[in-house]
């Protein structure tokens, strides 16, 4: 299938919804005292209302979205640049969204698919924004 038929600029990717219970944050960051990710008292002492999910968790969610879109062309050849603009707290529910921004020809007949990506919390506030990209080939496995 030609790239133009499969992926088009302006296309919205299917959103991902991610719940962030403390248990998943603990699995991601490890549990230790004096951590804003796993020690509620320490997080409050540092000025937060409760423990925070690592910003890096949002990069994993964006990675999942791009792997669903591009498969092997994201796992090898993908990239991402993301700014974390608002804290994500335990108990939050994130929706991960993406819109195709650009299709750029690359060597070997591949096309780099560039996607505007962002995460928003259950209040509709953006918590992370950036771009991610990967390679699309007609023969690529997804």
């Amino acid at each position, binding site marked *: 299938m030609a790239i133009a038929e499969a992926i088009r600029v302006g296309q919205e990717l299917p959103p991902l919804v991610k719940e962030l219970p403390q248990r998943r944050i603990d699995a991601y960051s490890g549990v230790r005292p004096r951590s804003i990710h796993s020690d509620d008292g320490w997080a409050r002492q*540092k000025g937060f209302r409760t423990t925070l999910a690592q910003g*890096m968790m949002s990069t994993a969610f964006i990675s999942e979205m791009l792997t669903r879109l591009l498969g092997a062309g994201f*796992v090898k*050849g993908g990239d991402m640049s993301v700014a974390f603009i608002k804290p994500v707290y335990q108990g939050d529910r994130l929706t991960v969204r993406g819109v195709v921004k650009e299709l750029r020809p690359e060597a070997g007949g591949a096309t780099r698919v560039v996607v505007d990506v962002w995460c928003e919390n259950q209040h509709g506030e953006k918590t992370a924004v950036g771009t991610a990209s990967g390679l699309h080939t007609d023969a690529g496995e997804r």
Partner: protein
Amino acid sequence: MEFADAAGFKPLTYEALTVGEEFVSDDHLVTPEDVETYAFAVDDHHPWFFGPSPFGGPVAHPTLLGNQALHLRHSKYIVHAGLHAKMEFHFLEPIRPGMRVRSRGKVIDKYERRGKQYMVTEFVTEDQAGTPLVRGQFTQMLITR
């Protein structure tokens, strides 16, 4: 904390940090358990993590080793808290269970903006043969209060 001080670790402060200083992680063997734990943590159970993939066997989530890079500064400093401000990844080769991996990093900038202090680190994560798997850079806000 006195033990950490005695072992040569010092509290991370803007003043203590030097642009150009380098960090190296310990080696880490990527295990199937790592991959499974990560899949649970981020609620992503892609079949390539547990079985055949286009790369000839299981591969890990591309961001699996992000924390190895992010924690590089812990190899020299006592870090009380910090906020991750920006992250950039370039996924060069798939990460596979059984690889022994290591991250190296270098502080390439530190700056103050709107009363807050930041450090910027570039990193590469390599396998045991020295093949780069992931490159990138990240910006962390220092919280020292």
